[in-house]
């Protein structure tokens, strides 16, 4: 009957030694883990509560199933191979220990025998091979392919650590197979076929004499043991700590809407000045980051050469967290203001991260301090001052807000004076920008054709504050919100519609009077989708344009609205062709987070230009459709510089619908 030759050929001293080393390993591992987690106590409370079921599910799909990691095929296969392989090998060793030292000693039976043992051997051999293949893929990727996102990690010794860990893992797996192979070569059990890899290795040692083979076996066994235990014990101190940290980080990841930022403190500086101003969850983020660089790959600021890399930010903060206070200042030395201001808050980094770090809330919290400290460029200061004084970033009078309505024949209802069904909140750009006023008028016409009972706030509307908040000016956001809510509470309406995704985001999630009280906040794309599909809005013409649609960050990635705008486009009779980076992977235009108000800085290639080129690379695209007024401005500008040739036009969704009326 097949059974496991536990400790076969292993001298007694080695057997005892193994248990001693194991005990030591557990102690060191636990102590190291304790040290790592203790650092987090320096952070502020994070207010994680409830949603236990969702968190467990997340743990299952992301920590165990690693769905995000698997988004990319090569690294996905590579990591899953290593993960399942090593997990299996570890589990196997654990089972063997239980079999030998627990059930045998205390309960008088062993389970690793017979059929169970054969299956055990087979699974381990195959999964061990998966680990080996995964590790080989990893080595090839890191040292031959050399993807950009793995280069130049801003942490001393990182490259060395990467190499050593990889080597150690390879050594452990290979030595393990060698031990098995040698054993099989000497013992030649009948069930050797159930260990295919071990069996193959055994063939290589067929010619070796037994004493030599036995000696080699012990030697490799000891080496394997030492390597494995060292690897385990050192885990809290190497990048492998993510094995423990990642599941924890995933479990405690925010379950609030993606928009949610860290609640600002009311006393003193609402931002992060020193490390301990971060929440413990943010500190955990830094410690969990495995510097895979996926965030950097997605970041539009990085791509345009603005000096921000979300990966570098996390790595540097982790380094700062662990360094023995050598007097380096968080602001200015570890992190530079330019890095923080380069972010357009598009959230691609947060979405890409396989271990669920939230780079964005960290950036905004750091920005909050820069604002208090006055470390902003002149243009941003001016925009914020204008928002404070006039309620719009253009520095124009409040009374000019509704000027765009003047050419319209039928006066739009004043929602402040009479009840309306739909309250249309325009946003600054749609109201003040002369070029966009035209789109606003077309929107009004569409609403009127659909027989919609709608009204606007005229000159009582103020900027919704989304970007002021993301620029770190929490107080300004609160002030704008107060003003808007004071007006909104006096109005009677059943729902809110807006043409601006940034406004949409703020109204939907950050305005208490609108959140969850039965009055939905919609983006105009959602409303048009509804009006068209319900037949209230009839489209008379069929446009035959070939259209590509750019998902705005605050509509798509932040709020998951992907289908509605596309349905609207198709309803106008246009054919839709997708850019490579579409849907949740859409590439930001670079205007968010207050960037549109800032000094551009030195850019290699503007994100908006890169996007236009992406669209032009598609065959025969005539229209680049957008659903955000800022996108319209950014891409029309980009078209002038990146795409002379007049074949492609940038149009708003509303313009297409209007043309199809």
């Amino acid at each position, binding site marked *: 009957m097949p059974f496991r030759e536990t400790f076969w050929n292993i001298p007694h001293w080695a057997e005892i030694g193994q248990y001693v080393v194991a005990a030591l390993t557990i102690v060191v591992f636990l102590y190291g883990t304790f040290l790592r987690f203790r650092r987090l106590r320096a952070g502020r409370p994070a207010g994680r509560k409830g949603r236990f079921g969702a968190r467990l599910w997340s743990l299952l799909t992301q920590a165990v199933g690693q769905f995000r990691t698997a988004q990319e095929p090569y690294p996905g296969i590579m990591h899953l191979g290593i993960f399942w392989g090593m997990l299996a090998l570890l589990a196997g060793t654990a089972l063997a220990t239980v079999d030998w030292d627990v059930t045998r000693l205390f309960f008088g039976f062993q389970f690793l025998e017979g059929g169970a043992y054969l299956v055990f051997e087979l699974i381990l051999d195959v999964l061990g091979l998966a680990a080996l293949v995964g590790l080989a893929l990893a080595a090839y990727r890191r040292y031959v392919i050399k993807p950009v996102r793995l280069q130049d990690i801003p942490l001393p010794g990182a490259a060395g650590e990467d190499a050593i860990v990889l080597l150690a893992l390879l050594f452990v797996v290979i030595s393990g197979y060698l031990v098995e192979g040698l054993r099989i070569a000497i013992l030649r059990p009948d069930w050797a076929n159930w260990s295919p890899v071990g069996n193959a290795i055994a063939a290589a040692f067929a010619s070796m004499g037994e004493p030599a083979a036995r000696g080699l076996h012990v030697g490799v066994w000891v080496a394997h043991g030492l390597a494995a235990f060292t690897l385990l014990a050192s885990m809290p101190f190497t990048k492998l700590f993510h094995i423990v940290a990642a599941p924890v980080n995933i479990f405690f990841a925010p379950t609030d809407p993606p928009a949610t930022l860290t609640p600002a403190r009311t006393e003193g500086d609402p931002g992060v000045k020193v490390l301990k101003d971060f929440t413990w969850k943010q500190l955990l983020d830094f410690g969990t980051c495995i510097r895979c660089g996926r965030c950097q790959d997605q970041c539009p600021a990085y791509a345009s050469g603005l000096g921000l890399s979300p990966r570098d930010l996390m790595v540097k903060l982790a380094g700062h967290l662990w360094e023995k206070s050598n007097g380096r200042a968080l602001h200015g030395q570890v992190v530079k203001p330019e890095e923080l201001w380069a972010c357009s808050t598009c959230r691609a980094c947060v979405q890409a991260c396989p271990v669920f770090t939230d780079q964005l809330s960290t950036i905004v919290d750091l920005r909050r301090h820069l604002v208090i400290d006055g470390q902003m460029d*002149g243009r941003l200061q001016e925009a914020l001052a204008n928002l404070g004084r006039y309620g719009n970033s253009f520095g124009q009078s409040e009374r000019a807000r509704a000027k765009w309505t003047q050419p319209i024949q039928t006066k739009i209802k004043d929602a402040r004076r009479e009840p309306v069904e739909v309250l249309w909140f325009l946003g600054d750009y749609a109201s003040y920008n*002369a*070029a966009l006023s035209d789109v606003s008028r077309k929107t009004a016409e569409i609403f009127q054709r659909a027989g919609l009972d709608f009204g606007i706030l005229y000159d009582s509307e103020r900027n919704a504050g989304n970007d002021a908040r993301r620029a770190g000016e929490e107080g300004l956001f609160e002030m704008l919100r107060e003003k808007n809510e004071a007006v909104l509470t006096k109005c009677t309406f059943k729902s809110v519609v807006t043409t601006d995704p940034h406004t949409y985001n703020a109204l939907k999630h950050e305005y208490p009077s609108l959140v969850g009280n039965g009055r939905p906040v919609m983006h105009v794309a959602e409303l048009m989708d509804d009006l068209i599909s319900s037949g209230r809005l009839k489209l008379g013409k069929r446009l035959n344009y070939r259209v590509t649609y750019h998902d705005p960050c605050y509509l798509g990635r932040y709020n998951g609205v992907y289908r509605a705008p596309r349905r609207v486009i198709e309803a106008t009779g246009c054919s839709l062709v997708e850019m490579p980076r579409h849907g949740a992977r859409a590439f930001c235009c670079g205007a968010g987070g207050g960037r549109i108000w800032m*000094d*551009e800085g030195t850019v290699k290639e503007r994100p908006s230009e890169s996007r236009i080129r992406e669209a032009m690379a598609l065959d025969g695209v005539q229209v680049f459709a957008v659903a955000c007024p800022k996108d319209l401005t950014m891409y029309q*500008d980009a078209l*002038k510089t990146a795409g002379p040739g007049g074949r492609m036009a940038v149009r708003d969704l509303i313009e297409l619908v209007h043309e199809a009326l």
Partner: protein
Amino acid sequence: MSQDVYVAIEHVQGQVADISYVMLRAARELATRAGGGVVAILMGHQASGLAEAMAADRVIYFDHPALKEFTPEAYQRVLAGLIHDDSPRALLLGNTTIGSDVASVLSARLGIPLVSSCRTVSPDGKLVVQTCGGKIMAEVELAATTTLVTVIPGGYSPEEGKGAKAPEVVTRQAPALEGLRVRLSKYIEPEAGDVDISKESVLVAVGRGIQQEGNLELAEELAKALGGTVCASRPVVDQGWLPVSRLVGKSGKRVNPKLYLALGISGAPEHVEALTDSETIIAVNTDPAAPIFSVAKYGSTVDLFELVPVLTERIRGAKTS
């Protein structure tokens, strides 16, 4: 009280400032109505020759080492004594770094009225003053007693204040000028710029509307096509996108080109006052209410980012054909 109108001449480093001639022209309006003459008040040291080109009936010249270059207290003392002695109909000073430092002090010290930012004299002899960045004008009558007036450029051209015949110079004794609380240590020359925009005949000016430093290229291209130079209003220079030597304005240079093309410039008074001598001013600004359109001959509200590249192409085309 005499019916003569006095003008406090401004000069720096041996050069008479253009505002002095503008004031002489304005003074002529007032003097004619009052039935008196225009008297230039020149304070300096060995500087009587500066009065050569002035369109004045006579010059009162005060010579003193302490008056070689302007300091506020020296000018205040001389002019206070002069007004006390002569009681002229009015004393005109520039609304400038020189005149403004002196005028209000004289008003408070002597208890006489002051009207500031006068641009022209109306047909019925009232002072026409500019306020609120040029958006509002007002008419003020001279007081019955000596009135102080500060004058801004733009209402009259300096040429109108120059005369072919050098006026008679009468030297008077300067009062004691010791113990001045404000003293000149030295002048600091501006960094020698690559170009002297005050000598250029084609200028392409950029203002806040250019938005980003990277967009200056558009203006450079246009200037090159026209054979001119790029200059700027204060916001652009404050940002450091162009050196101070390119600044057109009250604190910058006065220019007199054949063509002044203002891109994205709103037309603040401090800027506009320095380009009123331009032959043709063309303004591009998306805001049709921008004050620049009050001084420009032609204008367009097309977005400069759309217009400039097209215009540059057309000009290149016109030059080659």
